[in-house]
């Protein structure tokens, strides 16, 4: 079931085209990562989807939109830098937003308490938001985005500003959230996308340069690569691997030689034999699969 269809979405600022025509469909119940380097247009895309910005061209159609086109009851949105009323407590803010989203006072109160617990800030619920740390604001931001159980939750860089612990916890939160709703979140951190998401949209210079599930992406970009790390790398090693008949290309980084090969199995046997014959001191031998980072570099680099 498709939740939202985007066709030919474009956005220009003063004649400068930032989003150059996006087409994609979001399926219900999926977790999709909008991945791209800084300035790729991730925030702009999310702002257009949430209705905070008007597209220059193209259409965004939600399958369950109201007749007048209002989609705000369907979505929850967390901006990159969430802002609250500093004079309210976290608990008050959630209740306020819950009531605005149509919950009764009682529902809003119960749901707020439940969410404060879920995002792990119930100890600070009566503290003024102005006194919250960055991580706590981010959690409160997630809580306010999902308070009305929206069909689609959009999170703009939810973990980028957090320390490793906070990051871990928020990712786990998203993992749990996946069961309840559709999630679209933007990030420039590849591991985060890889960890939580089923699907990835690669955005680069305002265009989708690659998309698909993790498995599809791996298959499409699979390259056999062998990483060799030596105690001490010599010129001889370099030229030996460079000129091997199995080698497609090599990358040198300090004492590491990464060899892209045509056939991993043959290469493994041959390389190991070669190394032991020459008696080179090998610290590490690794057959690596393509990581998302490699795909990212490859896609962005072209």
């Amino acid at each position, binding site marked *: 079931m498709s939740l939202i269809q985007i066709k030919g979405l474009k956005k220009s600022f003063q004649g400068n085209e930032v989003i150059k025509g996006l087409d994609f469909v979001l399926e219900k119940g999926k977790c999709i990562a909008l991945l791209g380097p800084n300035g790729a247009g991730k925030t702009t895309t999310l702002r257009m989807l949430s209705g905070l910005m*008007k597209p220059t061209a193209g259409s965004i159609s939600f399958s369950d939109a109201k007749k007048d086109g209002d989609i705000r009851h369907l979505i929850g949105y967390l901006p990159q830098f969430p802002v609250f009323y500093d004079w309210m407590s976290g608990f008050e803010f959630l209740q306020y937003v819950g009531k605005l989203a149509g919950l009764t006072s009682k529902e809003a109160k119960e749901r707020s308490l439940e969410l404060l617990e879920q995002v792990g800030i119930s100890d600070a619920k009566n503290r003024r938001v102005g006194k919250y740390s960055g991580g706590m604001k981010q959690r409160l931001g997630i809580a306010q985005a999902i308070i009305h159980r929206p069909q689609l939750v959009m999170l703009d860089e939810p973990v980028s500003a957090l320390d490793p612990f906070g990051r871990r916890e928020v990712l786990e939160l998203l993992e749990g959230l996946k069961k309840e709703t559709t999630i679209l979140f933007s990030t420039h951190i590849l591991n985060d996308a890889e960890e939580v998401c089923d699907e990835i949209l690669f955005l680069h210079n305002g265009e989708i340069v690659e998309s698909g599930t993790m498995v599809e992406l791996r298959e499409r970009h699979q390259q056999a690569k062998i990483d060799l790390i030596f105690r001490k790398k010599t010129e001889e090693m370099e030229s030996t691997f460079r000129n091997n008949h199995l080698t497609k290309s090599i990358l040198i980084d300090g004492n590491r030689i990464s060899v892209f090969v045509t056939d991993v199995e043959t290469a493994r046997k041959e390389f190991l034999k070669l190394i032991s014959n020459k008696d080179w001191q090998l610290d590490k031998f690794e057959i690596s699969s393509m990581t998302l980072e490699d795909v990212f570099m490859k896609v962005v680099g072209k």
Partner: protein
Amino acid sequence: MSQWMTLFQKEIIEMWRNFKWIWVPITFILLGVKEPLTSYYLPQIIKSVGGLPEGAVFEIPTPTAGAVLASGLSQYSTIGVLVIVLGTMGIIAGERKSGVAAMILVKPVSYLSYVTSKWAGSLLLVWISLFIGYLSTWYYTGQLFDWVPIGEFFQSFVLYGLWLTLIVTVTVFFSSALLSPGVAGFISLALALAVSILSGALSHLLEWSPSQLTSYAGALLTAGELPDDTLPASLVALVIILIFLLFSVFVFKRKELAS
């Protein structure tokens, strides 16, 4: 309606937490009490400060109670307006600038309710402050001079309130049309000043100008009866208030919340 009440309550609580409920009424009371006190004690003040040449006879006529009340009221159209504009100019622009407006309006919140609840919240503050302040003027004038009939007090209070309502509405409009609270405040003040000066200078041509409401209120207190143009001027004020309020919503709706 319940959403509107939620928004409105938030405005009231916010003004409580940032002490507007304290300092705006206090300012209005101070402004209002100043006039009867200084008028009453002026002869003593001059005497005790001295500086008059020996033997100079300096008769200060005792003003009528109505005149004292009228000049007390006029304080609100200068410093009072300044206080109101400064307190209101950030009401929408500030929330948009900080980004919290986007957080709220990405929820299914009606733009009409968002703007009108803020407008109503400011008005409540202004009317209550004006009432308390003006009541204290009336009380001190009564104690020190003479009691002005309570009917005249109420009528002049409503006329002044109407003018201040217009000021609030115009400020809300610029606050919703512009991103900077400072610029919104400046334009609102400049506009109020320009209208007052213009209608004052061309009073025979612009009898229905809403800023004339302030002088009509004064005329009621000094002469004891309302000028004939009070009704058209009040109607014009109401129409302008309504137009500016609707425009505030309209302009705000068309704006992009994120930029």
